[in-house]
C-alpha cells in the first residue's frame, strides 16, 4: 500500500533542547523523500518519530491522514534501515530477514518465498546462511535493506544508510537504492547529511537546521533557487558576497565593497537598504584577463569584478581557483576541462558572471 506521511507541527524535546521544532511536512505516497541537514539538525529525531521510537511532545504524525502519534513502534508497519545496520549477530542472514515476517505470523511457505525475493532484490540470495559478522559492510547494508523491505512496510525509513560505507560503494549504492525504490514504489524517507547523496537521489528534499525546517523542494529548486544563504551554502557550496540592497525591480542591484552586483533572483519582500548576500556558484564564474582601466560599468545582464588569484588547485577534470576580491572576500571559481592554465598565482583577473546566476538573499549567521 502507498502511504502518505504528514508531520503536523511536530515538536520533540530531548534533554533541554528542541531537537525537532514545529516541523510540518507533507510527504506524498510513493515519494523518495530526503531529510537533509548538518549533524544535530534534528533529522534523525524526525525519522525516529515516524518509526514511533519518539512520541511527539507537540503535534502529530499521520499516515494517510490517520494519527499515529500514540501507536507503539511495533504496531506501525514501518521498515527501518539503521545507520549501523543493527543486524542481530546471533541470527544468520535468513533469520534476520525473516524476523519481521515471523512477528506477522506469515505462513512458512509464504515466508520462504518472500525472504528469497527480498534477498534477490538486494542481490544477497547467495548469502542466506551467513552470519552477519561474515559479511562486508556493503553486504550488511543490503541485508538490512532486505530486512526492512520484506515486511512490505507502509513507509521505508533509512537513517544515513550509506554513511558507514567507503566512498566508491556509497556512490554505487545510491543507484541501487533508487532502483529498488522505483521497483517497489513505496514511500521512503531517507535521512542524510550528504548533500550530494540527496541531490542525486531525491524526489524532494527537506533541508533542516537546528530542529527547524528551512526549505522543501526538488533538488533542482533547492540548487537554483535557494531561499536562504544557509541552503545556498549547504547545497552544492557557493560564494557569498556581502553587500547592501540598492535597487529593487526586475533586477536587484547590490552594492558590495568589491563593486556593483546585479541579480535576477532573490527572496521576496526584501527592502532597499537591507544587508544581503549575493550567492554565486563557483561554476558560474568565468575568468577573463583584467581590463586596463579598472572601472568598467557592468552591463545589465553581466557582472564583472576584479580579483587577484590566491591559489590554484589542479583536479584533473577541473581546476579550482581561489581569488581575492577588492574587499578581501575570498571566492572560489571552477574552470572545467582546463587545457592550458589561464593565470598564475598573483595575477589580476576579471570575474564575469550573468545576473541570472546571482541569487540575492537576506544576510544571516551561517554554520550549523
Amino acid at each position, binding site marked *: 500500500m502507498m502511504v502518505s506521511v504528514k508531520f503536523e507541527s511536530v515538536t520533540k*524535546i530531548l*534533554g533541554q533542547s528542541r531537537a525537532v521544532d514545529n516541523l510540518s511536512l507533507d510527504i506524498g505516497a510513493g515519494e523518495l523523500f530526503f531529510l537533509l541537514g548538518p549533524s544535530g539538525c534534528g533529522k534523525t529525531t524526525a525519522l525516529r518519530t515516524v*518509526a514511533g*521510537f519518539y512520541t511527539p*511532545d507537540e503535534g502529530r504524525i499521520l499516515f494517510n491522514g490517520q494519527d499515529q502519534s500514540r501507536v507503539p*513502534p*511495533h*504496531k*506501525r*508497519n*514501518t*521498515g*527501518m534501515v*539503521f*545507520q*549501523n545496520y*543493527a*543486524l*542481530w*549477530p*546471533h541470527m544468520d542472514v535468513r533469520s534476520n530477514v525473516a*524476523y*519481521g515476517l515471523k*512477528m*506477522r505470523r506469515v505462513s512458512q511457505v509464504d515466508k520462504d518465498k518472500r525472504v528469497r525475493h527480498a534477498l534477490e532484490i538486494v542481490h544477497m540470495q547467495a548469502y542466506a546462511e551467513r552470519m552477519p559478522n561474515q559479511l562486508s559492510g556493503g553486504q550488511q547494508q543490503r541485508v538490512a535493506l532486505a*530486512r*526492512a523491505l520484506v*515486511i512490505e512496510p507502509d513507509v521505508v*525509513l533509512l537513517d544515513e544508510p550509506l554513511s558507514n560505507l567507503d566512498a566508491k560503494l556509497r556512490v554505487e549504492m545510491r543507484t541501487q537504492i533508487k532502483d529498488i525504490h522505483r521497483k517497489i514504489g513505496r514511500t521512503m524517507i531517507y535521512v542524510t547529511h550528504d548533500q550530494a547523496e540527496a541531490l542525486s537521489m531525491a524526489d524532494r528534499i527537506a533541508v533542516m537546521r537546528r530542529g527547524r525546517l528551512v526549505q522543501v523542494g526538488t533538488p533542482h529548486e533547492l540548487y537554483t533557487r535557494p531561499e536562504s544563504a544557509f541552503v545556498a551554502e549547504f547545497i552544492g557550496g557557493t560564494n557569498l558576497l556581502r553587500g547592501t540592497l540598492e535597487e529593487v525591480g526586475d533586477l536587484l542591484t547590490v552594492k558590495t565593497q568589491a563593486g556593483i552586483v546585479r541579480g535576477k533572483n532573490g527572496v521576496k519582500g526584501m527592502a532597499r537598504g537591507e544587508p544581503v548576500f549575493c550567492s554565486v556558484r563557483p561554476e558560474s564564474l568565468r575568468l577573463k584577463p583584467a581590463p586596463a582601466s579598472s572601472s568598467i560599468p557592468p552591463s545589465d545582464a553581466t557582472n564583472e569584478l576584479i580579483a587577484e588569484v590566491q591559489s590554484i588547485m589542479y583536479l584533473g577534470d577541473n581546476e579550482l581557483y581561489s581569488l581575492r576580491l577588492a574587499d578581501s572576500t575570498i571566492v572560489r571559481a571552477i574552470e572545467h576541462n582546463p587545457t592550458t592554465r589561464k593565470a598564475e598565482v598573483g595575477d589580476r583577473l576579471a570575474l564575469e558572471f550573468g545576473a541570472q546566476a546571482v541569487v540575492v538573499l537576506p544576510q544571516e549567521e551561517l554554520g550549523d
Partner: protein
Amino acid sequence: MTSWLRRYDLNPANAALLIFLWVFFIVFMLYPLGYVFSNAFFTSEGFSLVFMKLLFSSPNNTIILANSVNLGLAVTLFTTLLSLPLALLLVRYNFPGKGLLNGLILIPLVLPPFVGAIGMRQLLARFGSINLLLLQLGVINQPIDWLGGGSFWGVVILETLHLYPIMYLNLAAALANVDPSLEEAARNMGASSFKLFKTVTFPLMLPGYFAGAIIVFIWSFTDLGTPLVFEYREVVAVQIFNMVTDLHQNPMGYAFVVVVIALTLFFFYLSKRILGGGSYEMLGRGHVASAARPASVAITVIAYAVVLGISALALIPHLGVLLTSVTSRWFLSVLPSEYTIQFYKNVFSHDLALLSIKNSLLLSSLSTIIDIVLGITIAYLLARKRVPGRSVLDALAMLPLALPGLVLAFGYVAAFSATPLDARVNPVPLLVIAYAVRRLPYMVRAAYAGFQQTSIALEEAAINLGASPMKTLYQITMPLIFANLIAGAVLSFSFAMLEVSDSLILASKESYYPITKAIYALLGRIADGPYIASAMGILGLLLLAGSLFIAGRFFGRRMGELFRA
C-alpha cells in the same frame, strides 16, 4: 504530565520495578546500617556520644583499632610492592607466554586466605615445616616464633598473598590507561626512564592506584576469617564478631561497626576526591597504540622469574592446606610421613561436613537466583531507561563492593532480631539475602556490560519489525547478553559458596552451617577436625578456581574489571 516527569521513561512497569528495588535496598541495606548508627549514637536518653567516648578512651580498644589500621596499611604496602613490578613488566612488555603469566597472577584471588591460614599455621608452627626445614639445613638452631606477637605478621602475609592480584589489576589498568603519547612527549623533552616514571607515568597512574589501595585496605581491615584462624583476636573484625552474641547487653559492637563504616566512607570519599578530580582525564588521545614493546631476553627472564616467584610464594599456604588434607601422619618432619585420601571421603560422610555442603549449595543457589533477577533488572534500568534517581540506584547497587560483609551481617543480626527474619531463629533468609546483596555488584556489572555491548539499535530493529518489547527482550536482548549473565551468575554463586564473614556471623545453629562456618567449627575440634576442614577447603578452592575459569572464558580480558572499585 509535568515536564519534569516527561524527561523519564516511566511507564507503570518501570515504575513498579523501581519501587521494588528501592524497597529492597532500603530494607536490606539502608535500614540495617541506619539501625547500627542509631544504636551507636542513641541511648534511652537520646543522642549521645558516650559509646564513642568509651570506645576511644579504653586503651584496650585503641590498641585494637591501631592493630587493624596497621594491618590494613601493612597489607596495602606489601601488595603495592609486589604488584608494581608485575604491572610494569606485564603491561609494558610483550613476550611469549604473557597471557599465561597474566592468568597465573590472578590465581591467588581464588584461594580464600581463610583456608590458606589453615595451611600457613601448619607450616609456620613452632615445629612446623619451615622451622624444621631451616633447622635441618642448619640455617637456624632454634625454632623461630613466626606466629608470635599475636600472629600479626601471619595475617599480613596471608592477606598480602591473597590480595596482591587486586592491586595488580588496578595498577595494570591504570598503567594501560596512560596515553603512550604523553610519555613519548616526556621522552621527547629529554626525560630519562626513571624521571619519566616519576614525573609523568606515576602521577597519571595515581587515581587507579588509589582505587586498588582502598579496596585492599578495607578488605584487610575487615577480614574476619584469617585473624580468627590465626587466633589473632585483637583486631576490630574479631571484636565485632565476638560482640554479635551479646549485642543487646553490650552496645560497643555498634560503636565498632560505626567506626568501620566511617573509615570505609572516608576512604571512598577520598578516592572519589582523587579520582573525580577530573584534571587527570586523558585529553583526546592521538593514537591508542599499545605502549607494550617486545621484551629483550633479559626482561623476559626477569618477568618469568618475578611472576613465578611471587605465584609460588602465594601458593605456599595452600600447599600447606593440601598437604594437611592428605596427611595421616605429620609430626616433627618437613613433609608428612604418611598420606591418605581418607579425609576427602570423610567430607562426604561426616555429618557436619556433608550437611554444610548441602546448606551452602542451597543458600548459594537461592542467592544467585536473587542476584540474577535483581542484577538484570537494575542493569536494564540503568542501561536502557531514563529513570529518576538513576545515579543513586547505581550507587546503591555498587555499594556492597565497599560495604564489608562484616558490617552488613552485623547490621542484619541487630536490625532483624525479634522479627520474622531473626537470624538466631532461622538464619536461612538473611544468609541468602546477605550473599545476594554482597555479590549483587558482580551481576549488575556483568549484565550492564552486556546491555552496553548490545547496541540499542538491535532492539529497535526488532520493535520496528513488529516485535513487542517483551518479545524483543527474549528473542534479541537475552540471547545476546547470555554469556555475560552466565559469567556473572557463576561468579556470584562461587563467591557465595565461600563467603566468610556473613556466614560466620549469621549462621547461628549448627544445622544451618554453610561450608565456611563448618570449616571454622571443625578447625576447633581435636582429632580429625582440621584434616577434614583442610579437605573441605581444597574442595572449595577447586570450585572457586573452576568457576573463575568459566567466568574468565566468558569475560576474557574484561574479567579484571569486576574486581575494581
